[in-house]
């Protein structure tokens, strides 16, 4: 075994020079570490806490309005505080100079804009194929909207040339956040709408109030959300008062023998529970997802009563072609499989991913109708269709 020698011997450097280089590199790395100064809420602002969302908070101070966006990884910190008004902008806050044009990085945002009657503000979107709401599609067809990320990668130069007053964005990891920081430094007003992290359906829908504030339509936003909340709660109450057994519900589809499933506190699990279904893994902790093998899912859910959201399949033959063994599941044998593919654009757009986020009351009614068909006979499903 050769005797271990300190690395500087191999580089033929004197020990002092080596030590100097190590210290210099350490200092440079420390200097390059970004500042972690915490954003503080401005003084003398009256804040109104949302009923269901945990990630945003509107407020006002005289004629000036504020929107505070909570940090998704640390609820004690603030990600952004946006200020609109003629008063001085507090330290750390982003001043919204104008709100005439909007670039939206998700079809969820365009869906909410349409609910607010703000579609004419839309000038850019990540992918033209995804929105399903009619006014947005009409605007896209008229050529009034620029596509900014057709293959998933943002064309930053195009966005900078577009110069929208507000860019509605989101990020999944630090790498995604960094690309937006460079655009902010270039002068864009970027608002991080992390509504996909809300686990309650009404929490996600409540972001329409944040959009209402941002786009200058707060009253419309309140009216829409109040209507959605009322319908949601009345359906939930009607389901809760039913005296019939809850069907066992299976969700999603396997890919290459692996099944991704929503955890017990997730958005989908909450919808299923509120619609009167018994999600098989309701006791699995967490608001995200977990993975099981096909065999385990068959053991635990092979006899489920209902199967919803089986990937991209719109008929049972498609399901069986994914894996012949899926035909062994009881819902497939009994033809009680339903998918959220009733409204699609044919180019990859699906109303479940934009419209349903702003209208969870309709999604809930759809599921309630599926789980308890005799109780809601008058409701025609909006998002779900049966697989035959």
């Amino acid at each position, binding site marked *: 075994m050769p005797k271990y020698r300190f690395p500087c011997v191999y580089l033929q450097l004197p020990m002092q020079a080596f030590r100097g280089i190590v210290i210099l590199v350490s200092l440079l790395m420390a200097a390059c570490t970004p500042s972690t100064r915490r954003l503080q809420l401005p003084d003398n602002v009256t804040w109104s806490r949302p009923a269901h969302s945990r990630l945003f908070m509107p407020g006002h101070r005289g004629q000036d309005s504020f929107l505070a966006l909570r940090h998704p990884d640390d609820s004690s910190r603030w990600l952004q505080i946006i200020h609109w008004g003629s008063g001085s902008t507090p330290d750390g806050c982003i001043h919204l100079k104008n709100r005439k044009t909007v670039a939206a990085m998700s079809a969820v945002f365009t869906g909410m804009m349409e609910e607010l009657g703000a579609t004419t503000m839309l000038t850019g979107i990540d992918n033209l194929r995804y929105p399903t709401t009619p006014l947005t599609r009409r605007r896209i067809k008229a050529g009034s909207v620029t596509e900014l990320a057709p*293959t*998933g*990668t943002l064309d930053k130069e195009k966005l900078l040339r577009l110069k929208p007053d507000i860019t509605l964005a989101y990020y999944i990891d630090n790498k995604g956040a960094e690309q937006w920081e460079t655009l902010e430094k270039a002068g864009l007003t970027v608002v991080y709408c992390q509504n996909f992290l809300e686990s309650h359906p009404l929490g996600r829908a409540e972001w329409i109030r944040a959009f209402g504030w941002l786009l200058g339509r707060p009253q419309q936003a309140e009216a829409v959300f109040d209507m959605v909340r009322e319908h949601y709660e009345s359906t939930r109450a009607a389901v809760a008062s039913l005296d019939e057994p809850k069907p066992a519900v299976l969700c999603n589809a396997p*890919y*290459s*023998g*692996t099944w991704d499933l929503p955890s017990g506190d997730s958005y989908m699990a909450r919808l299923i529970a509120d619609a009167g279904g018994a999600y098989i893994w309701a006791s699995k902790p967490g608001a995200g997802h*977990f*993975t*099981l*093998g*096909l*065999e*385990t899912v*068959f*053991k635990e859910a*092979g006899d489920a009563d209902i199967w919803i959201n089986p*990937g*991209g399949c719109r008929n049972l033959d498609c399901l069986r*072609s994914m*894996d*012949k*063994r899926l035909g*062994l599941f009881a819902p497939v044998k009994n033809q009680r499989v339903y998918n959220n593919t009733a409204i699609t654009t044919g180019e*990859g757009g699906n109303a479940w991913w934009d419209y349903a986020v702003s209208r969870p009351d309709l999604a809930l009614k759809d599921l309630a109708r599926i789980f308890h068909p005799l109780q809601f006979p008058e409701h025609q499903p909006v998002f779900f269709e049966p697989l035959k």
Partner: protein
Amino acid sequence: MKRKNLVNIVLLLMAGALVAADLLIDTPEFGTAFTQFRLPRVMAAFITGICLSMCGLALQTLFRNPLAGPFLTGVTPGASFTVALLLMAGGGVFAGSALLENLGLAASGMIGGAAVLLIQLSVSRRHGGMFTLLLTGVLLGYLFGAGVEILQSFAGAEQLKSYTMWGLGSFSIPMKQIPFYTGIALCGTLWIVYQRHRLDAYLPGDTYAQNAGVDLQRLRLGLILATGLMAGASTGFCGPIGFVGMVAPHLARALIKSNSHGQLWLTTALCGAVLCLLADTVAHFAVPGIQLNVNAVCALLGAPMVLWVILRSR
């Protein structure tokens, strides 16, 4: 008892124990869940271990290079690219025909794998050496990886997810694919076993092989076809599984202290089978309630072994 027989018996017992463990842990009922899910998965792990290890043995002989294997030589990335073409751009091209579906996956993998091997062979004949082989393999890996990323840019969400999950590797294949897969593994393995004496003669060099009466062209072509078929089939059915192909032959050599293909082939096949069965058992049962990624487990088991091979060869 001869050392190699003892080693083979021990490996056979280990494989048997792992098969039993994989089949019986978590008390499955011996009904549909067992015959349609558990049994084919364990059989696929066993067959994949044999396929990849025999590929590795053949490739290390073909290139006369101890680090050759389906991954590092670019065979698996090439097979992955052609499978990606089928999954993302081919869509339901074979829908409705089970035979074509099976053939399609295996054939697409084989075409990609064989194409890479032909490139590697022509490069190594002009510029032989370990460095050239690895560099070409890495470059081909990058090339085909880039091709896959471009395909992903145009794929829909479902196709993207389908390819991504396939890329994580899984032995969970339907029972109907097992006979076909077994046939391919058997043909490839039997061909390599049949050529064992020629492979022994090939190993020292081209001149020695020719003097021993070996038809070099035919042998190389046969090796390319056999390894392309087995690596392509295993990549198509189970996704890209790393490390097994390279590690298993070295483990076999270390255990029986021989380079003779006549003695090595069975030990290599059993080593590969044991590795894959172990990876599958760990992936499914190490963390209760959660299935780990088979490829990641193979890497956790295989990477230290690869390091050991490299250090040992110096």
